[in-house]
């Protein structure tokens, strides 16, 4: 099978599972479809020889963030009766917002067809491997990398402070 074939199949599977996230009636099933979508995206990364990115995508999104999502949804135990009412106004705003996003994405897609070289190119040797990524992050992109890590630390300290506000005594 050629690279093109694989990428087309993977892409359609990704889109199908992403659609199922929106279309499935039950929130827990939506989350599980989202996890599957992340796996397909990881597979896409591996196709482009970016193994590090693929695994990190799996650990961070599928392994940590989605587990938290699932955790919260299980505790909430949402069902049909608790669904918020949709008014005509909210439907219209949702359609407009979604349509605008869709328009932007279609424009972006047109750009990739115009300037890019179609689907996935044959992977550049060693391009996505962790050594190359590390060298780039600590030379060319050092400043953005450090700034984003400061942002993360700020968020973490903020979360700890918020959680600490109530004095809990557990012995």
């Amino acid at each position, binding site marked *: 099978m050629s690279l093109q074939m694989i990428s087309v199949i993977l892409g359609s599977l990704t889109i199908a599972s992403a659609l199922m996230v929106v279309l499935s009636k039950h929130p827990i*099933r939506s989350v599980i479809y989202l996890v599957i979508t992340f796996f397909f995206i990881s597979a896409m990364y591996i196709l482009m020889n970016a*193994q590090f990115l693929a695994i*990190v995508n799996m*650990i961070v999104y599928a392994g940590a963030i989605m*587990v938290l999502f699932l955790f919260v949804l*299980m505790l909430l135990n949402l069902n049909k009766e608790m669904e918020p009412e949709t008014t005509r106004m909210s439907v219209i705003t949702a359609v407009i917002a979604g349509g605008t996003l869709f328009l932007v994405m279609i424009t972006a897609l047109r750009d990739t067809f115009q300037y890019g070289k179609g689907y996935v190119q044959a992977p550049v040797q060693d391009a996505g491997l*962790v050594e190359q990524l590390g060298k780039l992050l600590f030379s060319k992109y050092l400043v953005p990398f450090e700034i984003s890590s400061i942002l993360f630390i700020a968020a973490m300290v903020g979360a700890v402070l918020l959680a600490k506000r109530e004095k809990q005594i*557990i012995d």
Partner: protein
Amino acid sequence: MDTAMLIEKSALVLLLFLISLGVAAYQTYFERKLAAWIQDRVGPDRAGPFGILQPIADGTKMFLKEDFIPAKADKWLFIIGPGISMFTALITSSVIPWGPNLNLFGRDISLQVADFNIGILFVFGVVSIGVYGIMIGGWASNNKYSLYGAIRASSQMISYELAMGISAITIVMLSGSLSLNDIVQSQHGINWNIFYQPVAFFIFFITSLAELNRAPFDLPECESELIGGYHTEYSSMKLGLYLFSEYTSMFVSAAIMSVLFFGGYNFPGMDAFSGNLLAVMCIAAFALKIFLFIFVIMWIRWTIPRFRFDQLMHLGWKVLIPVAIVNMLITGLVVAWNQGWM
């Protein structure tokens, strides 16, 4: 990829699959015998000599029981749950280097299914998705106790994953590679990482117990509070798969611990041998280390009482993570000093 390589890799995968299942089956026997020994009992001794056929009897019993799906359960997720658990337990064995190259039929056969250049991250990826089996199964059962078990499992796994990752980073710093093969080869002879990183090993061992849901961290299936935890509603081979996946992941995590800290297949005095003899002896040394780890894990289960949930969170977040971070900082400083960066 040529045909011979395809055949040898498939054979290796099949062999690993069978060995993992066989070892898991006999772990159940070993655990029951060990528990009996610790508690001064006889243990299983009816099926065959010394009860050696007990796992087969247990397996047959599991298959012959009625397979029951609760009426209000989410049917598909209920079926998928044990499958995910078993899948994640089995797939990790593909990146473990089981021994040096074996020379058969004039070909060098690597005893590692995939020499992934980020093998250690792959292990963490699989560990982090391993919780889905328990969460999905526990939720789909539509039972309060199962749900409690699932929620406990997920919060416990997320909390202990952090300390596990941070303690394993020190090994990556020392060997300078994320590939498990390189990590093993950097521990040639008796140059094992345990002598450089005892603190990291200690943290990694405790967090592995927690990730395995083994006592003293078996809160997700704590019988005295939650009946059976996440597998309360399961019966027949679905329950069997959950129990089996626990033993399989115990085997695999014993292998990971020996790879990261106890030199994998390396043993002192290995330079005196070469060729296939060396490979066989290395595999034997690795098997011995795995056996010892499994023994220690079981020994702990029958010795230490279960944690309370707040104690579990306290240990994870306020003890293990800070100690792991300090350990990582010190390792970083020492590595930088040795490399002459300071």
